[in-house]
């Protein structure tokens, strides 16, 4: 048994609308189900990994509200079908969220806890307008990834590796509540310490090389899909890994949008790789995510025959 990608989508808010993480993730979830030709009842667990959300909402889980948007198990009493219940929650680990969620999904699918796991990754500025806050580096963007079990033993996701660092945080996102007055719903502080990009590059390159060695991965036959903590992160990571630049893809936000992709980056990168087509002699992906903590996560993915 292995875990595979059934469908993947990204979403942006209309330019004249305040962005909502719930709506972006909800639309991405619906599009993902449509692409997979599945009804909402086919998904047992929804994991939302977005970090920044409208109004700085901290309860309930954004995942529960995304589940409602996607029409999954609205009321168990109205449809009390054992096995058709859905469970959702937020998993938060900065830029590494999607890769953490893949590992959690592997556990849920391996133990037969569910047939499919839907991962949503949407970040928006708490005010709904990222473009209006020059100090906020991320784009208002959503994405979804539908994972399921495959009976084939070849291909799919490999082992997920997560590495932390003893360095200081490097990146932090928080609401300073002292002094916020009554404006806390629309404010956020993202602090990037001096040298944070170097710290993340060191950890990302070291963890990737260690992972490739441990898993027997030939990086020259692999497309590295990396998160994008800085605009030129991919170029520097390729140099650190000793790879030509075209073997490291860091995703661009959709045209007309500003800011960097955050938790949605691995899904956005995967879709851009499929759109562009894999380079010659490349037959697998290596997802690398680097962010706050500092933390870095890696996982390999080999599409199955016929998928």
């Amino acid at each position: 048994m292995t875990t595979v990608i059934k469908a993947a989508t990204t979403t942006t808010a209309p330019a004249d609308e305040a962005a909502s993480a719930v709506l972006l993730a909800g639309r991405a979830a619906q599009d993902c189900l449509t692409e997979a030709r599945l009804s909402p009842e086919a998904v047992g667990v929804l994991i939302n990994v977005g970090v920044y959300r409208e109004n700085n909402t901290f309860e309930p889980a954004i995942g529960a509200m995304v589940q409602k948007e996607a029409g999954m198990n609205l009321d168990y009493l109205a449809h009390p079908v054992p096995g058709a219940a859905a469970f959702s929650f937020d998993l938060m680990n900065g830029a590494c969220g999607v890769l953490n969620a893949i590992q959690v999904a592997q556990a849920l699918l391996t133990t037969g806890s569910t047939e499919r796991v839907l991962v949503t990754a949407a970040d928006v500025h708490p005010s709904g307008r990222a473009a209006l806050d020059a100090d906020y580096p991320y784009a208002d963007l959503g994405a979804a990834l539908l994972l399921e079990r495959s009976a084939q033993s070849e291909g799919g996701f490999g082992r997920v590796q997560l590495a932390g660092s003893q360095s200081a945080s490097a990146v932090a996102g928080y609401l300073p509540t002292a002094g916020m007055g009554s404006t806390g719903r629309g404010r956020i502080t993202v602090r990037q310490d001096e040298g944070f990009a170097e710290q993340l590059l060191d950890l990302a390159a070291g963890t990737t090389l260690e992972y490739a060695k441990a898993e027997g991965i030939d990086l020259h036959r692999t497309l590295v899909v990396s998160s994008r903590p800085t605009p030129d992160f991919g170029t520097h990571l390729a140099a650190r890994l000793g790879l030509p630049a075209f073997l490291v893809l860091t995703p661009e936000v959709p045209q007309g949008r500003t800011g960097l992709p955050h938790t949605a980056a691995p899904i956005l990168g995967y879709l851009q790789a499929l759109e562009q087509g894999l380079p010659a002699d490349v037959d697998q992906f290596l997802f690398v995510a680097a962010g706050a903590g500092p933390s870095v996560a890696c996982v390999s993915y080999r599409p199955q025959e016929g998928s």
Partner: protein
Amino acid sequence: MTSDVGYSRFEALGAYLPPAIQSTPDLVASVAQVPDVPLERITGVRERRVYDPRPEAGEDSYGLALKAAEDALAHSRYQGAELDVVISTSITRFKDGDDFYFEPSFAALLAKELGAHRAIHFDLSNACAGMLSGVYLLDRMIRAGIVRNGLVVSGEQCTRVAQTAARELVDSYDPQFASLSVGDSAVAVVLDRSVDEADRIHYVDLMTSSEFSHLCLGMPSDQSEGIALYTDNKKMHNKDRLRLWPAFHGGQLAKQGSTFADEAFDYVIQHQVGTRFVDFVNQTGASEFDSEMPESLTGVEVFGNTATTSHFLVLHQHLTEGTARQGAKYLMVPAASGIVTGALSATITNLGV
């Protein structure tokens, strides 16, 4: 990683309670615009613990969580360096005093501080079902063979929403009324593989009925400086919502050919919303399952509603005080915004507390 290795168990449990106590009359006296709210009569909460705001006390959400994690490890056979995973589930994420954190994850920072250098780490947010959701995931990760053990931890500065409510409440029907029943605390639990039926999580199944996900919302206030919780209490805890647990749990048991009576639980721990709520849920369960309820353990009278930590705080209190016996079979039932419900069944015999 292709097979289920069996079961997990609770290996160690830790807790931390701020020493400062606030009585309900003292809290009621601080409610600016509504005199003499009959809070104790409605909720059954006599007092609650309240964090110390001085930085040196280390009682922000992160500091509270760290103290509980250290307590759990003090009762565990594992050192921090031996932990395979750290999952943090705080709803209130205050660190460095008044900063409400979204990243990095508390789990990454706790793992670093506990010496859990090789641990997988992530935060999990699922309202008051956070700790049980963390246990659900850790149970599945252990059973899938991805990890051998792990820590689930939560520290909550819940009384911050009570402070906002005391400033802003206009009458007892105000959506912030439920915020007056909360208390501060932290818990942490270590899980590893079960090799003995006497120490085993038999199952943990959770469900979100998302139609009701907008009935309880937490966010910064737009009236004054502070975080606030807005709850439609009437809809959130009406009779139909209370039937979600027996309907779902009963359905899961039926799939396995079991009934509630067959499970022979010794104790039930409901989410600690208030004494009346606990009674109502148990009465609903007895009626829907057509079965007597096991002995109900509570702590809400002296701790208030402590959000994510409530089930494990009650378990910790009763085990350390000897009012619950080790070797018994426990049922924990979450009731959280989302709306999340479900059931955790475990036999607990050698839990370090």
